């Protein structure tokens, strides 16, 4: 069993510790860890860390999910611009 997981975030290959959440992986790919832009176009990043604020919504393998409550899986494709 590997202690690392590789996934794609916005087309970029990212390597994180196995068991990391997608929210944690966002921070690895981009220093700010931004997940989406607000309705007026401001960057937003995971905020509550626990599935309440919905600010970490991303597309994961084509489905809209919460980055903070999704564990990274090998080969997963995450899009933050959706």
């Amino acid at each position, binding site marked *: 069993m590997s202690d690392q997981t590789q996934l794609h975030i916005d087309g970029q290959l990212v390597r994180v510790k196995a068991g990391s959440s997608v929210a944690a992986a966002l921070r690895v790919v981009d220093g700010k*860890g931004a997940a989406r832009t607000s*309705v007026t176009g401001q960057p937003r990043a995971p*905020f509550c*860390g*626990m599935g309440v604020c919905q600010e970490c919504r991303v597309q994961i393998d084509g489905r809209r999910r919460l980055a903070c409550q999704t564990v990274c899986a090998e080969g997963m494709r995450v899009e933050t611009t959706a």
Partner: protein
Amino acid sequence: MSGVAFDTCDVLVVGAGPAGMAAAVAAAPSGASVVVIDDNPAPGGQIWRDGPGASLPPVARQWREALARHANIRVRSGTRVVAAPASHELLLEDADGAMRMRWTKLILCTGARELLLPFPGWTLPGVTGAGGLQALIKAGLPVEGERIVIAGSGPLLLAAAATAIAAGAQVLRIAEQASFASVAAFGASLVRWPGKALQALTLADARYRTASRVLSAQGTAQVESVRLRQGDREVEMACDRIACGFGLTPNTQLGQLLGCALAGQAITVDALQATSVAGIYAAGECTGFGGSERALVQGTIAGHAAVGEVAKARTHDRERARWNAFAAQLHRRFALADDLSALPRPDTLVCRCEDVPFSALSACTGWTDAKLHRRCGMGACQGRVCGDAAQFLFGWTPPAPRPPLVPVRIETLAGLATPGDARQ
């Protein structure tokens, strides 16, 4: 075809935190079929969150093993409850699809969320809740070398600091809004709960300041500095991250949707943890926040009561009273200062989903007005962040929950339309 699966159980527990785990383990020896639903990837709730940045305490492992030992307990992680489509039925969604679950007894152990209050700059990337930061770090967020300021109120600030320090962060300041006298009185009261006193000692930190609060976060694309008020002084510190939480608010949405009565902000329960609705029990922080020990004992009582073992349930009365008293201390000593409502400036966003500024809300007469005319609370979080904030800022009663409780996929909504008796 709706594609919505159907399942059934005797006891359905919502939430796999300390309360939900204890409830399931107490109910299981009766032989009842028990299902535990939780939206996180693994059981443990807020306090026992597992991940590459967490080290689970032995007690958490013991509860997990206890859950696994009972063949009649099925745990469904990564699953959220989104609606109550029919009497004795809940609609669930996971990564793969939707399901309707029929129950005979229901135990709500939905826990609490952080109270997050608006201040200038709170929408910048790098600002999180205090417990939120702790949760993100446990799930692998790298914070090594980051300069972090933690602010807000309650013992969770110290727990978040300990997690951040263990992960290699530099915690510059822990700003507690309560006064020194209040925090000292809380500390002194801990002689009644020696385990807690020991915990407090290990968490005590030289960077801790009372009567202190965040004023604003500065930065362009992300947090670059924070302004704090410490007593009557103002200080500015360069930092990479600000974690700010003002205590906890019970998660009552599902209880309210099912018709359970509330007292203040918590679900009302009787001596057997029964709610005002027959067959529905509630335990843990959805009945008022007060720590994991209180959640465990309440969960145990609810689990026994739900399977009709009243005598067993009653043997835990004294222990519950002891932890209820602890909860009362917490509430009293970390009560929020009223003038925290002066933190937002006119252009500070209160509703982060719909980007509604404070100035647009201050003229509103209440929630309905704010919703209809300003779209406040109409976004994805459905008022769970701004609703709590508006209650604190303006005294508005939060919006009544509507199904679905969280944004769901179209396929899941089909489960609401399927008549309860036309199942397959």
